């Protein structure tokens, strides 16, 4: 695309073409040119971001949505007990994790979107890097991850929920382990640490 045609896309987006015939012609060009459509998409997003209304409508950051969904689907946990009674503890433990996990969730989503382009199906890579967005917004790319049988939408949703929960659980455990460290309750500070030496070959 030339600079001139980018300018036209931009003008079209701003409704800045007075001549209706020219406008129609531009629209036709836009509809037939995939590159122009991409430019349109980008400009429209930039425009929304500048006006400040992209965050509410556009799934730029799906972490909150995913966290909310995961916590809605969750069943009561019993990891933690407190002096305020079990029920109230569960009520605030659950969102806790969602907050803690937010960063990683978004990250996974972003990463997988970026990876979709360069990953051409390549049998040699074993195991393949997951290229599917966790939110399942672009399930097509999952083909590169799974060997032959394509999973259904429901299976994908279940899998992404499971992956989220591993990330979330990991974050929760890190926080709890900080507390345990402070209270000297981690294994490392007990005699048990010598129980199981790990072999290192390096």
């Amino acid at each position, binding site marked *: 695309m030339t600079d001139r045609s980018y300018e036209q896309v931009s003008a079209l987006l701003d409704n800045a073409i007075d001549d209706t015939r020219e406008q129609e012609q531009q629209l036709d060009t836009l509809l037939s040119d995939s590159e122009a459509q991409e430019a349109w998409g980008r400009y429209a997003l930039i425009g929304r971001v500048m006006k400040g209304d992209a965050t509410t409508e556009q799934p730029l*950051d799906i972490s909150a949505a995913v966290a909310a969904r995961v916590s809605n689907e969750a069943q009561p*946990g019993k990891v933690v007990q407190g002096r305020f009674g079990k029920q109230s503890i569960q009520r605030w433990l659950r969102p806790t*994790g969602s907050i803690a996990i937010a960063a990683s969730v978004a990250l996974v989503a972003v990463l997988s979107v970026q990876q979709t382009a360069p990953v051409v199906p390549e049998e040699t890579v074993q195991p393949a*890097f997951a290229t599917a967005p966790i939110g399942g917004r672009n399930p097509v790319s999952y083909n590169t*991850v799974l060997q032959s049988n394509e999973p259904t939408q429901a299976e994908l949703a279940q899998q992404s929920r499971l992956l989220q929960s591993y990330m979330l659980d990991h974050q929760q455990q890190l926080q709890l382990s900080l507390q345990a460290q402070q209270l000297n309750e*981690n294994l*490392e500070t007990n005699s048990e640490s010598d129980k199981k030496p790990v072999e290192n070959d390096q």
Partner: protein
Amino acid sequence: MRILKQILNRTKNQWKMTSNWWRGSLAGLLLVSFTAPVIAQTPVAEAPSSSAEYWFNQMSSALRELNFEATLVKSSGARLEPMTWLHGVYEDGLEVELVVRLNGADVRSVRIGDDTSYYSQPSDSSYTLHSDVTYGLLPAAFYQPFENLQPHYQVLVDRGMRVTGRSTYFLRILSRDNDRYHYGLWVDRKSGMLLKMQMTTPQGEVLEQIQLTTFVERESMPISLSDLRGVPRPPRLHEIRNMEPPQFSLEPQWLPAGFKLLRASHRRIAETRLPSDYFLYTDGLTEVSIYVSQSQQQALPELALKGPESLFNLNQGEFAITVVGKLPVSTLQRIAESMQPAT
């Protein structure tokens, strides 16, 4: 789009003005630079390795002792998170720290001494942990002397670039093998404060960054922190004391050198309630979680997710092994593949 161009032009003009001003004061800058390096360079020139540790330890005490007000941006992958970061010490020596996320949901953490509270909206999701480190900003190891990270990490010092308008030393924390991530730290020459951090792969790809955008050191506690001591704290999280021991008797036969077992139990993981054996290992700087569950129940394909926090899933016989942590995927894979029945 036209607005964008206008802004661009305006910035160009400003730049011209700035460079004129800069040329004017060049003579003055030259004068300063004749005198300053003599004082600043001495710690580096003498003993490189020990002065690297010296500056690392300066940083860890600065994080505990300084009174400061800062703003920063944390970036992980393509995600940017701006935050305010305040720290101070009461006259009786009690530490107080406040971290406020500026984008999206209003999440704040308040640390007073050994108690850290995480406030969020709605307020019933807030909680308090007994911990003298705020989770989510910096690795806990940065608050402790460097000797805790030896011998599996080494630290090197170099002259750093200008960061947040200040002269810095550049510290590199390198693992002795290539099985974990490296850190780059830019530390203020004057105060020892951490001004910029990068977590990179051994190949140098940046995975996570923190950049302070403003940093003001105060003589005494920042005013906005002074009344935090009386703020109501959310309830405290307690863990069940008697955890079930692991059941599937699979254990890792390989981990990078220096990783120690912190926790081991059999429990249901968060949200999905999948019954799993759980192991948490740490090398003092980073942690790795290992989950073992029944393949039939888990039903995930073999896969890897790569990012600051990576995940590797492997099916081995009737068990699914999932390894999560801030480590290269190749390391996670090797850990997963080393899982064997305990002898």
